[in-house]
C-alpha cells in the first residue's frame, strides 16, 4: 500500500516537473512572440528590418519539405517493415538488416546531412534543392518509421492472421485487409514521432546547404529553400532585440504547424480505432 502511494506520488511529481518545463517554455515564447504574430508576418519575406520581416518562405519551405519527406519515407518505411515482419525469413540476413536499422535510428542527424550532401546534392546532382532536403530527411526518419511500424505489426494477434488463412485468403490479402488496418493506429503514432523529429531538424539541412535568406517560396522540387528552424536560428543570432521577438513568433508558427500535422495523424488514428471498434 505504502509503496504504491510513494510510487504514484513520485510519478505525478515527475510528470508535473516535465510539464512545468514545457509550460515555462510556452509562456516565455508566447509572451515574447505573440504580439508579432499577424497575417503580414506569415505572408512577408525576410528583411533586414525586424518589423518588416516575415516567415513566408520558411513556412512554405517547411510544409513543402516535410510533405515530400513523408511522401518518400512513409511508403518505403511501411513497405520495408511489412517485408521484414511478415515476409522475412528470420535468417542471418534478416537479422543483419534488423541490427543495421536499429543502429541507423541512433546515428546523429548531422551524419545524415553529410550523406545527403554527398549523395543527393553532389553525386545525384539535385543541387541545394527541396528534393535534396527531403531526401536527406527521409533517410533520417526512415529507421524510425520502420522500427515503429514493425512494433505496430507485432501487436496484431497471430490468431487474426490464422483466421484469415483459414478462410482461404492469400498472404497479401491477409496483410492488406487484416493486419494493416489493425496495426494502423500504432503505425500512425510512429509517423507522428518520425515527422515531428524531421520538422525540427536544422543541422542536416544546413549541411546540405539549405539557405538562410530566400526571398521567394519554393516553386518546385528543384527550387532553393529554407525552413522554419533555420530562420528562427538566424533571427536569434542577430544583435537587435526585435529579431528575438521575430524568433519567438517563428517558434509559435513552428509549434502550430507541428500541432496541425499531429492533429491530422491523431484524427486518422481515431477513425481507424472506431472503424475497428
Amino acid at each position, binding site marked *: 500500500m505504502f509503496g504504491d502511494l510513494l510510487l504514484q506520488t513520485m510519478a505525478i511529481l515527475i510528470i508535473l516537473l516535465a510539464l512545468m518545463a514545457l509550460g515555462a517554455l510556452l509562456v516565455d515564447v508566447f509572451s515574447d512572440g505573440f504580439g508579432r504574430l499577424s497575417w503580414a508576418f506569415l505572408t512577408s519575406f525576410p528583411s*533586414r528590418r525586424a518589423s518588416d520581416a516575415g516567415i513566408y518562405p520558411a513556412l512554405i519551405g517547411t*510544409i513543402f519539405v516535410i*510533405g*515530400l519527406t513523408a511522401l518518400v519515407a512513409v511508403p518505403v518505411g511501411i513497405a520495408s517493415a511489412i517485408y521484414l515482419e511478415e515476409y522475412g525469413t528470420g535468417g542471418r540476413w534478416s537479422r543483419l538488416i534488423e541490427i543495421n536499422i536499429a543502429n541507423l535510428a541512433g546515428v546523429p542527424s548531422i551524419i545524415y546531412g553529410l550523406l545527403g550532401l554527398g549523395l543527393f546534392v553532389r553525386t545525384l546532382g539535385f*543541387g541545394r*534543392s527541396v528534393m535534396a532536403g527531403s531526401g536527406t530527411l527521409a533517410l533520417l526518419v526512415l529507421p524510425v518509421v520502420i522500427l515503429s511500424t514493425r512494433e505496430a505489426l507485432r501487436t496484431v494477434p497471430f490468431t487474426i492472421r490464422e483466421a484469415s488463412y483459414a478462410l482461404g485468403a492469400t498472404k497479401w490479402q491477409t496483410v492488406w485487409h487484416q493486419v494493416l488496418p489493425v496495426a494502423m493506429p500504432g503505425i500512425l503514432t510512429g509517423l507522428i514521432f518520425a515527422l515531428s523529429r524531421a520538422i525540427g531538424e536544422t543541422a542536416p539541412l544546413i549541411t546540405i*546547404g539549405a539557405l538562410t535568406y530566400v526571398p521567394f517560396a519554393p516553386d518546385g522540387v528543384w527550387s*532553393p529553400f529554407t525552413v522554419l528552424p533555420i530562420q528562427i536560428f538566424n533571427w*536569434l543570432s542577430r544583435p537587435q*532585440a526585435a529579431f528575438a521577438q521575430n524568433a519567438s513568433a517563428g517558434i509559435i508558427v513552428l509549434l502550430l504547424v507541428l500541432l496541425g500535422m499531429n492533429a491530422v495523424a491523431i484524427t486518422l488514428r481515431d477513425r481507424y480505432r472506431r472503424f475497428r471498434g
Partner: protein
Amino acid sequence: MKVSIGGWAFLALVVASGCSSGDQQTPGEGAAPSVIAVDGSSTVFPITEAVAEEFQKQNHGMRVTVGVSGTGGGFQKFCRGETVISNASRQILAAEIEACKAASVSFIELPVAYDGMAVVVHPSNTWATSMTVVELKRLWEPAAQGKVLRWNQVRATWPAQEIHLFGAGVDSGTFDYFTEVINGKAKSSRGDYTSSEDDNILVQGVGGDQFALGYMGLAYYEENKTRMKLVAVDDGNPNNGQGPILPSIETVRGGTYRPLSRPVFIYVNAAALERPEVNEFVSYYVESASDLIREVGYVPLADVEQELVRQRFAAKTLGTMFDPAMGMQTEQTLEQRLRAPR
C-alpha cells in the same frame, strides 16, 4: 490556414508533375537561371541580406539567395562553382586560392565594409577602462589557461578578484581574427572561457557578471550599450593613434582602432559576371551599400576606399590584394592595399 492549404495543394501538384517528368528535368541551380546564389560568413550575412532585399525591391523578378555556411564553408562551395558570390569575414587563404584555381574559378575580391571587435566589461567595472594588446595577450594566450585567473594578474593595480572570460566560439571568423591579431596565431587561445557562436549569449554573460570580460562584434555592443562598457585598446604603435582608443565609426574606419577592426569582403566569380543579373547585383552592391551597412550596424568604407573598390570592380581586377603567406597584416591600411600596383 489558407497559406498552408494552398501549400499542400501546390505540393501535390508539383509532386504529381515531378513524378512524370522528373527525369527529363535538369535538377539543381540550373533549373532557375535567375537565382544569384550567395553563401559564406554569418558576419557578412546581414549586409548582403540588406543589399539583396533592396536590390530585389528595385528589380522585380531577380532572385538572390544567401546562406550562412561560414567563411570557410562558403569558399568551399564558391570554389566548386556552386555559388557566384562568397561572403567572407577574412581574406581568402592560400589553400582556398588553390582550390579555386584547381576548378578554374577566378575571382574578384571586393572589400565592402568594416567590422570592429569590441572588448567589453560589466558597466559597474570601474578599473578596466583601457587595455594594451600585450595585456590582452597575457589574458587570452594558451599559456594563460589555468594560470591567469584574477584581474590583478593582468595589471597589478586591478582588484584581486576572479576574472570571468567570455569569447567567440572556435568555428567563427571572429575567433580566428581575434586570436590571430592578439595571440599572434589564428585559433591559438586559452580554452577555459565561456565560448559561444551566438554573440547574444556573450552579451548576457558579460552583462550579468561584475567581474566579466569578453569580446564580440561591435554591432552587438551597439545594440546593448546599457548592459556593457567598452574597453579602449592600445596597440602600442603611436603611428596609428596615440594611447588607448575606443571603437567608433571614425576610429574603425580611420585605422586607428587597431588591431581589432577588420574589413569584410565579398568574392565574386569572375566568369559569372557574364550573367547580366549577377553583374547588376554586384554593381548595386558596390555603388549603394553604404547606408544599408550603417543601418545593419557595420562601418561603411571611407568614400575614397569605396571609390577604389568601384574602380576595382569596373576593371575586373582578379585575385587577392593580400599576400596569403603573410596572415592578416594589419600594418597596411585598406586604402594602401587597394592602391597597390599589381
